[in-house]
């Protein structure tokens, strides 16, 4: 049975697009047919994060306005079998699409794909309403900061108002050492405020910037802790239980493995 998951946060810059790209890739790597859909019309990013920008010919608005068929606009990721991107239009704005059109589009995608992930734009306006329109459930991304958590709380309310089931939470940019020294909100603090089930904790890491700049999401790097965190999120989304959280594991080799990764060997040949 296929499912549409919207990835949202309210606040900008907490990692919605990165999460969408990584979870989408991780689901595809575990054998699912996945479509990732960029709903951030006018400020598209998902294509850049996935490194597929230069292959865009048609976009979501073209599909919705009937200028091309859905299949023509879907960009197949050559690195991972089963991942397809439906990019947003860059030269239009959020009002180019209506929630009804999005609902129809998602329904159409669900006929072909096991998972449809919608990368929601920041904010609570039209872009958000479009993104939740066709969704079956929501993934809320937040960082351990009061502002991000306040916005996440607001978004959870809006998701509930849209009559979606209880959303799941991803805590991004988590620093265990700062939490231990009492300088950062802990997982327990955040869960107490937001009171929704946790589906993943992604550790803070500089590597994510390099991944983003190269269009090579962390999941593609088997050494990456961040990638491992997203792989586990994908497993939990598929119903696996009792998987430990990466960010809470205190492995002394963490930073050394990150440094090892900086050499960045094998992934280059997949660039297209």
């Amino acid at each position, binding site marked *: 049975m296929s499912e549409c998951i919207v990835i949202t946060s309210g606040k900008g810059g907490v990692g919605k697009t990165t999460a969408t790209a990584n979870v989408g890739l991780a689901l595809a790597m575990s054998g699912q047919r996945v479509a990732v859909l960029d709903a951030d019309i006018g400020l598209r990013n998902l294509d850049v994060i996935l490194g597929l920008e230069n292959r865009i*010919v048609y976009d979501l608005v073209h599909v919705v306005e009937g200028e091309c068929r859905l299949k*023509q606009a879907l960009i197949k990721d050559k690195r991972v079998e089963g991942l397809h991107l439906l990019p947003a239009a860059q030269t239009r704005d959020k009002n180019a699409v209506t929630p009804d059109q999005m609902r129809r589009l998602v329904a159409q995608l669900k006929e072909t794909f096991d998972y449809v992930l919608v990368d929601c734009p920041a904010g609570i306006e039209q872009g958000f309403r479009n993104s939740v329109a066709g969704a079956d459930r929501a993934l809320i991304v937040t960082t351990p900061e009061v502002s991000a958590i306040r916005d996440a709380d607001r978004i959870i309310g809006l998701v509930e108002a849209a009559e979606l089931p209880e959303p799941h939470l991803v805590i991004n940019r988590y620093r265990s050492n700062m939490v231990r020294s009492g300088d950062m909100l802990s997982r327990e603090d955040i869960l107490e405020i937001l009171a929704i089930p946790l589906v993943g904790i992604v550790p803070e890491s500089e590597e994510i910037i390099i991944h983003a700049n190269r269009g090579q999401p962390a999941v593609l790097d088997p050494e990456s802790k961040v990638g491992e965190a997203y792989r586990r999120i994908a497993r939990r989304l598929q119903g696996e239980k009792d998987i430990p959280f990466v960010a809470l594991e205190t492995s002394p080799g963490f930073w050394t493995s990150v440094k090892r990764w900086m050499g960045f060997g094998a992934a280059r040949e997949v660039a297209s």
Partner: protein
Amino acid sequence: MPAAPPDSGPSRSVHLGDCLDPLAIHLSCEASWESARSDLAVLLGSDPVRFQGIRAHLDIGDRDIDLFELRRLAHALEADHGVLVVALRCSPRSVRRYAERELKLKVLAEEETASQIPAIEPPPAVPETPQPPVPETPPPEEAPEVVEASRVEPEPVEAPSLPEPEEPDTAASRVQVVHRTLRSGSSVRFNGDVVVFGDVHAGAQVTANGSVVILGSLLGLAHAGARGDDAAFVLALDLEPTQIRIGTRIAIPPQAPGGGPPRGAEIAFVREDRIVIEPYRGRLPSSSAQRSVE
């Protein structure tokens, strides 16, 4: 300003015929497309019950309209007002052909709707030449494959369902000059050549029915010969586009943007069915002038 009766305000840009089914809709060429469109929406919205479910004959005169705009209008009329556009009357040949093939509209001869349409300036006569039959080739089902088009051996890509090739007759004489840098999200579209005094950033788009000259760097997308003119070219002082399109071909340059030292002015054009990029040495591609479009 007091509420105007439905047909006094917009009537300069829109005329509706008296007969209701089919309804003749004439969009005047004097008003801009956007204002004609919104005026039409106001007119139809003024009496939604009357117009619901009727068929319409659309007359756009000799306006050389963007084909996507035409489709957008037809969709909007159906979705917002329940008005189904079944036929089109217009002069530009490319629009007529597109309307017939892609939108499945009946293309009307000049006289057929004339009686239902208020008297207007007749559009300048366009000599009618018989079109050779074009074989119907359904566009591929899958997304068009955008292959790396290297500076040495570029790979051409067929773009599906782009507008039909059109003789570059009118485009040659018109030039639009853009005196600013085009940032992400902005786009320029022109029926003729486009010259940009500035850069075209990634995420920005220049679409010209003629050629594109950028006196700056091209990092975004440039589409020359957007009506299918293979003789069009793209010239930039620094050519690092996200994607480049000439006629119906799509290509990407071999290197990731930002890589390597600046190479100086380069020109992209079609040679032997593929897009090639060459250093620009003050000479336009010699074959391009007489290259004919299949």
